[in-house]
């Protein structure tokens, strides 16, 4: 039985190969974290489990690519900047509409109704984005480096490295925003206790608009990263399903959880795909099917959850009768 490592022509027991897989996995995990971040922001501020986050990534990327074409006769820097700003405006508009049309009428409904409503938003946005911009795969190239760097014998994709840097900048920016601005403080207050925040005069409706806009911003960044890696296409919204195990692993309410969860899922998934399957095929059952990527993240997260039901960094669930 030819194993995956043999196919690549590398020594499967080399420590460098292990590192290469590990780092590749961590970088993929960063991409999942980017999507998971948007979920966390909205869940914290409004307890809405926003299933539409994945489609928002796709929608933002579609708009970004579309506006890049619109501004195609401008110099590159201006073109990218303008497309970014216009897309961001679209995402803010989306946040306004969602708050007015969906969230406000459904306030105080059961969580599951709001969850279903966000699935409705997801379906709507999918149709809307593709109605405007068409459904073929669009390449996205804004000059993200696509070389490889070698660390020892381990090969690292530059684009992955770039994504990791962008993600770190994004997280630091969000952390600063939450800690040092007036709006950030209001957001944290709402996340902590809706009622108390309302009673000291924080307008919840505005907070929802802001937090959906911030989630839209995160979706745009994630969309650009994913889009330049895979092309802007429908499957981006499916890839976002991978952010869900990241989310339960890290905890719905924790931003560090989204990052650490993403890293664990990404690395675990890649290592399992190569080494675990290899081991099973070599020692236990040679006919074991190779593609375990579809479900491994979920089973891994499920395993974690059995020991920590609120996720790694989630707030401790206190239940009273």
């Amino acid at each position, binding site marked *: 039985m030819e194993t995956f490592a043999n196919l690549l022509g590398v020594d499967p027991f080399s420590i460098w190969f292990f590192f290469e897989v590990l780092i590749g996995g961590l970088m993929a995990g960063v991409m999942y974290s980017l999507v998971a971040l948007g979920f966390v922001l909205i869940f914290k501020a409004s307890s809405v489990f926003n299933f539409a986050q994945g489609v928002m990534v796709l929608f933002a990327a579609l708009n970004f690519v579309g506006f890049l074409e619109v501004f195609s006769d401008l110099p590159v820097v201006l073109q990218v900047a303008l497309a970014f700003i216009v897309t961001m405006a679209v995402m803010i508009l989306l946040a306004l509409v969602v708050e007015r049309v969906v969230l406000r009428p459904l306030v105080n409904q059961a969580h599951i109704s709001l969850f*279903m409503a966000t699935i409705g938003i997801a379906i709507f946005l999918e149709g809307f984005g593709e109605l405007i911009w068409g459904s073929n795969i669009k390449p996205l190239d804004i000059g993200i480096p696509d070389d490889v760097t070698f660390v020892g014998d381990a090969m690292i994709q530059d684009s992955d490295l770039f994504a990791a840097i962008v993600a770190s900048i994004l997280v630091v920016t969000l952390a600063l925003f939450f800690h040092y601005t007036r709006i950030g403080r209001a957001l944290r207050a709402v996340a902590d206790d809706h009622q108390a925040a309302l009673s000291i005069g924080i307008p919840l409706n505005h907070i929802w608009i802001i937090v959906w806009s911030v989630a839209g911003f995160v979706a745009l960044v994630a969309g650009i990263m994913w889009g330049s890696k895979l092309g802007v296409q429908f499957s981006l919204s499916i890839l976002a399903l991978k952010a869900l195990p990241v989310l339960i692993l890290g905890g719905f309410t924790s931003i560090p959880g989204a990052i650490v969860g993403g890293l664990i899922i990404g690395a675990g998934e890649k290592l399992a795909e190569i080494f675990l399957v290899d081991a099973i095929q070599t020692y236990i059952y040679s006919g074991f099917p190779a593609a375990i990527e579809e479900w491994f993240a979920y089973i891994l*997260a499920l395993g974690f959850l059995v020991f920590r039901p609120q996720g790694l960094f989630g707030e401790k669930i206190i239940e009273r009768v």
Partner: protein
Amino acid sequence: MFYREAGQFKTSYAADQQMLPIPMDRYFVIGVVLVAAILIPAFGSQYWIESIMVPVLILSIAAMGLNILTGYAGQLSLGTGGFMAAGAYMSYKVATNMPDFLPVWIPVLVGGLFAAAVGIAFGLPSLRIKGFYLAVATLAAQFFLLWLFQSIPWFVNNSVSGVPSAPPTTILGYHVTGAQAIPEAKYLFVLTFVVILAIIARNMARSRVGRSWMAIRDMDIAAELIGIRPLQTKLSAFAISSFYCGVAGALWSFCYINTVEPTAFDIGRSFDVLFMVIIGGLGSVLGAFLGAAFIFLLPIFLNNVPGWFGLEIATDIVAHLEFMIFGAAIIFFLIVEPHGLARLWQIAKEKLRLWPFPH
């Protein structure tokens, strides 16, 4: 005036405890079942029976199943498609390997039982994990089960394509499954399952087991304190719900799409069934039927609307518009009737009771 609960006096416990104690309800339900069993197969068109009634009825079974889990026991699940697949694949395996003299409903039930066992396995984490964490965890069932059936050829008798067609089976000389079956035979076969499972669901909901589910749903710690065992209650909800889903999956493969294929049970199916439960009404058997009909018919309706107005729209634009309208319709229904279509039925009864006086 037309409908009243008051003044219905009973003289025996049996009469008082029957499933539909109000005569009007009883005659209405019996009438609906008779129409479904006699008039529709006798006068309905082949297209309607085969392409609308059969899938709607099968999906109602799945919706009843998910309703038991989500509506009655309060455990949100996104793994319905996986459990349906478990039923479909296992009943295919049994149907193709059993002796000929055994009746065809046996593999369907075995498929359901297998799905129930799988449901128990994936229900175990529900003892620790709650709410949306559980919902995402049940996605593990969805993805793992589909992967399992796709990559282990034993389930499809090592078929080369991996997508075998449903085995043709007969009852009293009539084909009821597979491509040769006439629509009426399939329809009656499915209808039998629907009626029996609906009666069972309705009775479970008002018996001890159903009440313990509802107690767990409303507050599990309080339920535990009054002596309801969470382990048995939650796992029984998972098992029975998955049984319903497994039967629905088997029937879907055998009587509707005529093949056993994983794409029929993908995550989209899970969401569809969840929509049926929410739009139909949580915790209502009637809601399962209304929701299934609504969610299944809405896309067909949207597809035909441009044709009725004589509009010529490119098919891809129609597809995108369909998505948009479907999403918007779901949001609209959640806003105007958060308790689902079953609530509309309640309101109608209220009106009938008061008519012609408004108060």
